[in-house]
């Protein structure tokens, strides 16, 4: 017993000095005090190959590592393109079929030629793929079995070096896109634009297959795309079929990031592939950061690229203007699948920024009686900032336009859809299911994209009236009148005398979605329409949509680039899903010749007043036809601590990490302040355990003694 008490005192003596420190810090104190950003990811990235990845959670990493030719200006709105690895914006020449230069507006334009002039001061991150021996051969391009045995990660290579970015690296990336086995999601669409890519792709795919079966490495330098020309080390020319002004936006995306041929050959070695050392998992870029650790199941770590070229914070009145980028030395992304630990770590100061989950919404945000959002008192006390922005996304409820009941272009079918569009109260949806994190859509085009208009000009007059400077949803009585004119007075078909029954297909099968489905039923019920929910798994749901076997369904679209073409093509007839074997993105199968004609004209135009006029006409047609219930544009809300600075939401750019800044001294001060351990319960628990041991020991001894004394007749 004496020994136990001694041990408890010893334990407490050890414990009390720790009282001054912090026990629950998941990071080391050294790291917390360093210029490191701590953040999280909830979905493990599956592919970091820039030619393949088409996912925002993967672009969060890729965007910091690879550098396509162009980027979005971090501060300017509306979004503006600027050179990233180029000396200037690409120069564009328009050519006729004989490849003679003609005016941009000339009808003879058959090709557009984009000339890219690269900066000469850009170098890749240090990487073993670039190391050469005395004979100028790549040192690690054909590793022996013996050498491979010692290699588990890129750090196991003895040497690393860099080289300058060359025009051929961009050409190599486009060639990789052409290899069908690489599964680039934009290959099929780019084949229609980049001259010669289709022929190249057909040929190289066969070559790649042969090389694979023979176990040989595929070096794409030996093959050329007719429309991609390398004119020296720093000049690249890309030829496009016809006019495609949106191509500039594609040049900001990772698909056009440079790939050094040395890295491609290096990572094709079978011994490295079997160790998960592939280009898909270990990018080689020229960006502000390189991937130092890739464990998608635990942690991804980006470290400042020491070879990063000169780039400064955009010119402005900001205190960091013209200062050299990047500001943060290291970024640690930890996998957090559950929202509770993520949220609590943010509140403890161990994550520098956080989104707001629906569970944490009430704790973080308070909505005033006027409907404006603000931070709760608890957040304000911690000096946390709230950053909100409307996303360039549209979520809508689609009518299948080939369906005999809700589809079609007759007056009655239009009125049926218009009536439903009025009855589904998007404002209520946003309030109930989105914690006010969204805005009701007036058309397919979200805010921030050319063609979006605010106020009365941008109102969807089919669904809204403009009253006292506000959009006011038209009355239910008006919707009922439209429904009656459509042949369904009070929801009863005049032809059959039976109530109108519509089917809503959804993959939202979980118990959490029951309330949402009930809400939809209620909305239709206000018109007397019976809504039948057909819940199914996601595979079947997608299949039904592709084959046009639905009536109503919900769908959404996130912008690839800030151009109205990227939204209005969702309604372009040639993209109808049923006519393209499911490949088309027009899931509602909307086809209006007048709309299509305007779209074809609008898509190659620059953002001029003339283009705006055409867009207005298109929106008017689509609003009248109502192929969608124009749903919502979501608002994203994010929180960040006072020590995390220069955080400006940018919905299009993926490479924004380099502009951000951390005040590590303030962070560690706050972490200590907020996380002092509470030791009293520990002492109480220790004393209770001791007391219990002591009592039980005593009871046991008494019992044993009782037996002895009974045997001896002494008791």
């Amino acid at each position, binding site marked *: 017993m004496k020994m136990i008490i001694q041990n408890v005192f010893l334990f407490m003596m050890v414990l009390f000095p720790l009282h001054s420190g*912090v*026990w*629950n*810090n*998941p990071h*080391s104190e050294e790291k917390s005090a360093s210029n490191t950003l701590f953040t999280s990811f909830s979905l*493990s990235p*599956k*592919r970091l190959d820039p030619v393949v990845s*088409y*996912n925002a959670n993967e672009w969060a990493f890729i965007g910091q590592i690879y550098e396509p030719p162009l980027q979005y200006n971090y501060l300017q709105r509306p979004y503006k393109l600027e050179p990233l690895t180029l000396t200037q914006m690409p120069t564009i020449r328009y050519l006729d079929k004989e490849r003679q230069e003609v005016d941009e507006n000339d009808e003879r334009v058959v090709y557009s030629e984009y000339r890219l002039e690269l900066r000469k001061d850009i170098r890749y991150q240090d990487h073993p793929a670039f190391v050469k021996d005395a004979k100028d051969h790549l040192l690690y391009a054909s590793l022996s079995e013996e050498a491979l045995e010692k290699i588990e990660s890129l750090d196991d290579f003895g040497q690393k070096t860099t080289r300058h970015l060359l025009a051929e690296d961009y050409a190599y990336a486009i060639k990789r896109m052409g290899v*069908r*086995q690489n*599964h680039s*999601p*934009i*290959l*099929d669409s780019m084949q229609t634009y980049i001259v010669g890519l289709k022929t190249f792709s057909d040929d190289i*795919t066969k070559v790649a297959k042969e090389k694979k079966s023979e176990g040989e490495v595929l070096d794409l330098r030996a093959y050329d795309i007719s429309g991609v020309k390398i004119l020296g080390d720093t000049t690249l020319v890309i030829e496009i079929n016809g006019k495609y002004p949106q191509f500039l936006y594609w040049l900001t995306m990772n698909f056009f990031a440079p790939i050094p041929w040395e890295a491609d050959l290096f990572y094709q070695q079978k011994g490295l*592939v*079997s*160790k*998960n050392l*592939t280009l*898909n*998992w270990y990018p080689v870029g020229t960006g502000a950061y390189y991937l130092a650790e890739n*464990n998608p*199941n*635990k*942690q991804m770590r980006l470290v400042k690229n020491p070879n990063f070229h000169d780039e400064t914070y955009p010119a402005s009145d900001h205190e960091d203007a013209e200062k050299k980028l990047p500001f943060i030395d290291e970024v640690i992304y*930890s*996998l*957090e*699948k*559950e929202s*509770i*630990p993520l949220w*609590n*770590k943010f*509140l*403890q100061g*161990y994550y520098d920024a956080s989104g707001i989950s629906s569970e944490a919404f009430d704790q973080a945000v308070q909505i005033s009686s006027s409907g404006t959002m603000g931070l709760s008192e608890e957040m304000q006390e911690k000096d946390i900032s709230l950053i909100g922005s409307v996303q360039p996304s549209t979520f809508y409820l689609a009518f299948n336009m080939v369906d005999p009941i809700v589809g079609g272009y007759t007056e009655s079918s239009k009125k049926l859809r218009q009536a439903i569009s009025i009855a589904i109260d998007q404002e209520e949806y946003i309030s109930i299911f989105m914690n006010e994190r969204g805005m009701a859509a007036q058309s397919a085009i979200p805010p921030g994209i050319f063609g979006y208009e605010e106020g009365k000009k941008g109102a969807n007059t089919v669904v809204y009236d403009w009253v006292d400077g506000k959009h006011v949803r038209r009355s239910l009585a008006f919707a009922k009148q439209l429904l009656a004119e459509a042949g369904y007075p009070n929801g009863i078909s005049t032809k059959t005398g039976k109530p109108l029954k519509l089917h809503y297909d959804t993959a939202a099968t979980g118990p959490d979605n029951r309330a949402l489905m009930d809400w939809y039923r209620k909305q239709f019920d206000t018109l007397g329409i019976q809504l039948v929910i057909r819940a199914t*798994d996601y*595979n079947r749901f*997608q*299949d039904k949509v592709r084959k046009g076997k639905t009536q109503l369904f919900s769908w959404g679209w996130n912008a*690839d680039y800030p151009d109205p073409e990227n939204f209005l093509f969702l309604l372009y007839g040639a993209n109808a899903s049923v006519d393209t074997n499911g*490949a088309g*993105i027009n899931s509602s199968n909307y086809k209006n010749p007048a709309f299509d004609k305007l779209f074809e004209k609008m898509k190659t135009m620059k953002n001029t007043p003339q283009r705006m006029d055409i867009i207005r006409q298109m929106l008017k047609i689509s609003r009248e036809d109502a192929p969608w219930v124009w749903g919502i544009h979501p608002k994203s809300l994010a929180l960040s601590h006072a020590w995390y600075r220069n955080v400006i939401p940018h919905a299009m750019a993926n490479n924004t990490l380099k502009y951000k800044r951390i005040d590590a001294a303030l962070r560690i001060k706050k972490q200590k302040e907020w*996380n*002092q*351990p*509470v030791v009293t*319960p*520990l002492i109480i628990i220790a004393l209770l355990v001791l007391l219990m041991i002591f009592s*039980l020991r005593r*009871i*046991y001894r008494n*019992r*044993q003694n009782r037996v002895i004394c009974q045997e001896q007749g002494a008791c």
Partner: protein
Amino acid sequence: MLAYIIRRLLYAIPILIGVNLITFMLFFMVNSPDDMARAQLGAKQVTPELIASWKEERGYDKPLFINTKAEGFAQVSDTLFVHESLKLFSFDFGFSDSNRNIGADIKERMMPSFSIALPTFMIALITNISLALLLVLFRGSMLDTSMMIVAVMIMSVSGLFYIIAGQVLFSKIWHWVPISGYESGWDGVKFIILPVMIGVFAGIGSGVRWYRSIFLEQINQDYVRTARAKGLSEIKVLFGHVLRNGMLPILTGVVVIIPSLFMGSLIMESFFGIPGLGSYTIDAINSQDFAIVKAMVFLGSVLYIIGLILTDISYTLFDPRVKL
């Protein structure tokens, strides 16, 4: 014993083929190769050409069980089932549909799972047996009755509650340990304290009740009376005789679990950010990654069979009457 082990291993082959067959049938009943391709390739710009090339690259363009286009034995052998199953039996798990080496991934994820599961298992075993013996020592007392009520209460509450309550209490309110995270080596001790503590506590109710019932069966046996008659103290009787004789049923339930400790726990790993194998299968099912699903089901079956063999072998160690 060697002959017995070889015999049992041979029995395992048809079992594993059967498990594999069922896995194939169930998976492809729900997911078609086209669906799998779409799940991997993403939601945007997925063309039929892209899907076809993805399937060809991974062999999903082959028929499942019977290849009617082939002739002779190739009708059976040139199928997805045979092609994929043969590799499994040589423990070549191949590559996942997102192009990662599954064997390397399993190797990497096994240790984090094991680093939580092993201490939880060991501490729980010792704690539960000790508490059960304590209750047997004080059987029929207020302590015994109240502890049994507490045990039932502990059993009645969901494990998820303990996880969330533990995180809130020990990390958020008292600031004793990190709420989640993982590091290998000694730096990682602070991360495993809470999950281990919660794992042990959540299992106390059922564990103590089960071990207590085993020991109570022994306590009235003749050999216990004889031991007491020899004048041994109650503690010596319990630890020296009751525990030893109660080991056989304990082993049946315990040894079979040991190999599967590597497989991890889904909820525990998810909440505590442990990069283990617990969520590997579920994530693969959600992303329709068949290569991982079949590998994990196969591995789980192998480990279970090994567990059963180990249980049989352990009998011989504790009961000399058992011969294999």
